């Protein structure tokens, strides 16, 4: 590293007065033990006290250290030393670095490597990591036990009593779950508060969900006996997030991935976007995007688009959550979504999915040749005269697009009803 110019030293000064003070000190008189190498400049400056101030400067990645109590940075001593060095009046190159400068440089180097390690995500210490994991599991264990107690209390006092509770009561339960690192459960409980107050079939809804939560506490307790896939589903249900970094390198399933449909929801606090994709071998996955209030969600993929992209799946039972592991490029548009199934078959698929993972309540289905009925909130009717009620359906739009003719419909089967996301009309995949 070359010697600094005086100008560069002047530029490093925090203000005029520091520079003026430094100029007064920039004479050889007060200085002793000064020296420099490629990286460091150091020296001792005799001030008003008994011991001289020790000054060290890293001239490569400029950093300053002085034992003086000044809050200016760099202080007048460091500036003065640099001025002398720049003029060649002190701190000549020396083979041996002063101890205090060497020590300071050593500390800096250590801190820098530690930071690099953290950045690269290298497991710094497997032991500490295991300890953290054990701590987290203990916290979750306690939270699950507490939640199980709450469930038995709920059943002992009766659901009718719970219905007269204010929202804050539910929020209190949810807050305790969040504290126990169970945000997924907390979200379900919070949602239940409004469902209980808003649904006509609230009693059955709450009873069955209480049963589901109860089963979840049992599954958590027996997690050592679960398969990796089953445990992943339980983890997802309680809200133990899998870091995307842990998924990224596991696999790279090649495309083209067909966009079956997408749904956006906004519960006021969080926006969610679900994009359903099907791979060349028929594997169906869902990409989840989240955004807080005021943030923008990822750009939605066009339904029917063929994406040239690789995908990695999160652990769990199918249909799995997945993430893109390469840049998304469109390969054009499909004219159909492929062969669909009947309503009976779709319900069988859902039965199978519930058997695989009882925690999940949404199943992607592609129905073939179904007609839209405008009664109530809308119905689908298939060729076997079987019917399926619709939910969140833009009926006017569906009717306008289909004209009462049978079409293929892709959607999410939820709670015995279908949320239509995509229809295939006239050799085009469209979003109603």
């Amino acid at each position: 590293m070359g010697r600094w110019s005086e100008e560069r030293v002047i530029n490093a000064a925090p203000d005029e007065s520091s520079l003026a003070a430094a100029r007064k000190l920039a004479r050889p008189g007060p200085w002793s033990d000064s020296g420099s190498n490629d990286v460091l400049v150091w020296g001792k400056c005799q001030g008003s006290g008994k011991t001289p101030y020790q000054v060290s400067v890293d001239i490569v990645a400029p950093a300053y250290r002085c034992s003086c109590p000044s809050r200016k940075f760099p202080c007048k001593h460091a500036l003065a030393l640099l001025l002398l060095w720049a003029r060649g009046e002190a701190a000549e190159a020396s083979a041996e670095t002063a101890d205090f400068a060497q020590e300071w440089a050593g500390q800096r180097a250590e801190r820098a490597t530690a930071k690099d390690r953290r950045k690269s995500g290298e497991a710094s210490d497997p032991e500490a990591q295991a300890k953290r994991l054990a701590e987290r599991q203990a916290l979750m264990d306690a939270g699950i036990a507490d939640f199980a107690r709450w469930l038995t209390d709920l059943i002992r006092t009766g659901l009718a009593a719970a219905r007269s509770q204010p929202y804050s009561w539910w929020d209190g339960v949810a807050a305790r779950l969040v504290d126990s690192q169970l945000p997924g459960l907390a979200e379900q409980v919070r949602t239940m508060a409004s469902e209980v107050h808003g649904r006509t079939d609230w009693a059955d809804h709450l009873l069955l969900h209480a049963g589901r939560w109860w089963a979840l506490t049992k599954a958590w307790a027996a997690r050592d006996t679960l398969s990796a896939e089953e445990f992943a589903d339980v983890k997802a249900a309680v809200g133990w997030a899998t870091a995307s970094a842990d998924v990224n390198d596991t696999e790279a399933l090649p495309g083209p991935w067909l966009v079956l449909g997408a749904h956006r929801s906004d519960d006021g606090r969080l926006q969610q976007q679900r994009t359903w994709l099907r791979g060349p071998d028929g594997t169906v996955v869902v990409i989840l995007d989240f955004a807080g209030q005021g943030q923008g969600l990822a750009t939605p993929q066009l339904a029917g688009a063929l994406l040239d992209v690789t995908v990695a799946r999160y652990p769990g039972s199918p249909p799995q959550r997945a993430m893109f592991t390469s840049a998304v490029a469109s390969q054009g548009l499909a004219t159909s979504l492929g062969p669909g199934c009947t309503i009976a078959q779709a319900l069988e698929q859902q039965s199978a999915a519930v058997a695989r993972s009882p925690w999940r309540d949404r199943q992607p289905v592609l129905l073939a040749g179904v007609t839209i009925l405008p009664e109530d909130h809308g119905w689908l009717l298939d060729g076997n005269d079987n019917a399926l009620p619709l939910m969140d359906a833009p009926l006017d739009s569906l009717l306008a697009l289909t004209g009462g003719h049978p079409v293929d419909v892709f959607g999410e089967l939820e709670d015995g009803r279908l949320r239509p996301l995509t229809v295939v009309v006239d050799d085009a995949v469209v979003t109603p």
Partner: protein
Amino acid sequence: MTWLDELTWLDGLRTAALVGTGRHSAPSPPAGLGVRPPEGLSREEEVLDQAAMADVVIRASRRPAQAPAATLPLPASPDTEPQAAGEAARLLELLLTQPPVGLELRNQLVVDWLQLAEESRRRVPHRLLPAMFALAETKAAVFKRLEPAIGTRGRWLQSLSKTSVPKPADEGAELGSEDARADLERLRSTDPAAARKRLATHWDDLSARERAHQLALLATNMGSDDEELLERALDDKAKSVREVATGLLDRLPGSLRAGRMSARLLPLLHLKGLLNKRIDIDLPPDPDEQAVRDGIPSNQRSGEPDRLARLDIIIRGAPLEVWTSVSGRGPASTVELLKPEPRVLDGLITAAVSRKDLEWIRALLTVRTDVRLLGCLPAGEREQWLEGYIRNGIDQPLTLVPLLRDLHQPWGLGLADALLGLIAGKNGGQLAAMLAQVLPTALPPEAAEQCRRLLERSDEDPARRRVLRDAVQYQAFRQSLTEAFQ
């Protein structure tokens, strides 16, 4: 497991959960499930275990439902016209979902789109039909233009009760009008004679109020055949009915009453002056019984009789030919003689307008700017008169606003140019503001450049700026629409 077992079990489970296990124990799970609960569970654990089981059983055993009993709508027939594609479809979507112009202009542009689609035999894309219907539900102008561009699919959607578009109430429709009156009104517009006959048949059964209302409906499609009934109404005991009758008879210059009025008017008029350049007009005498029947008020018990009002009534009822016969000139010259008599001119204007006598209307227009007169002219001629007035410098330009609003659009370039001159002038801002609704759409495309130039001028008047900007925007978008359909 039978569904009955399942129902009984779920009922028991629900009851236990609702009232709490403190007061109710858990049911036994149905044998059909083949489940034996573990020993030694608390009541709460039993209920929760079974709830978990019920949750899975219900979700895993869903069966297809029966379709609701409604009849399946017949599928729509294929459309006969191709759908508007490309830029035309994109512009319509823009107008319907995120209009780049004000809402009034948006509605007009949607109407323009529908018209252009009709002309080029294109239809609204299926996916945009719901938004189009939603707009038509509140905007009568859009509703009226839906056909034929909505195509077969649009008509099919309208036939479904769910998406049918209720016809918006016509602006200005009379509220609370009786069914009978509405019926008679419809009949009068299609078969005037039948309507008159029906009214005559029921005449004596009707209340005075209803007689007056229904008689007034004869104004539509009136002809000399109606005279008999109107003469009969002159003898009605209700004043309101007699007033309607005289008002209607004023419109029939060939009627007996007009003849009687003519006989009353003629002796009052005298051609005077050296060159017969003056018409002196006497005031009518006290009315006899016949004159009172014809609507001329008799002497009041106190105060002076209003003889001028009597003259007005006579002028309004008498044929206009009386005046030309006295003056020995045509209507235009006769009107010229009457210039110093504003009250007489008023009466003549009323008479000419009520009889739609174009010759007299044109004659009267040479001495008076009257919106009623202009309103009777054919559209093209009205526009010429308006332009002429504006070019000659009009005192009260705001009086033109109602006429300009009614004018057929787009206006001719001459009128547009004259009006823009007026708007650009001093105090033009107020006129611009009052024409804000019509001006952007009424100006012909050729006037857009002039608007743009006026807009570039520095201008303090925000209303004028807004109207001109709207006009420029509308024309630009309209131009894009026209190109998109080519």
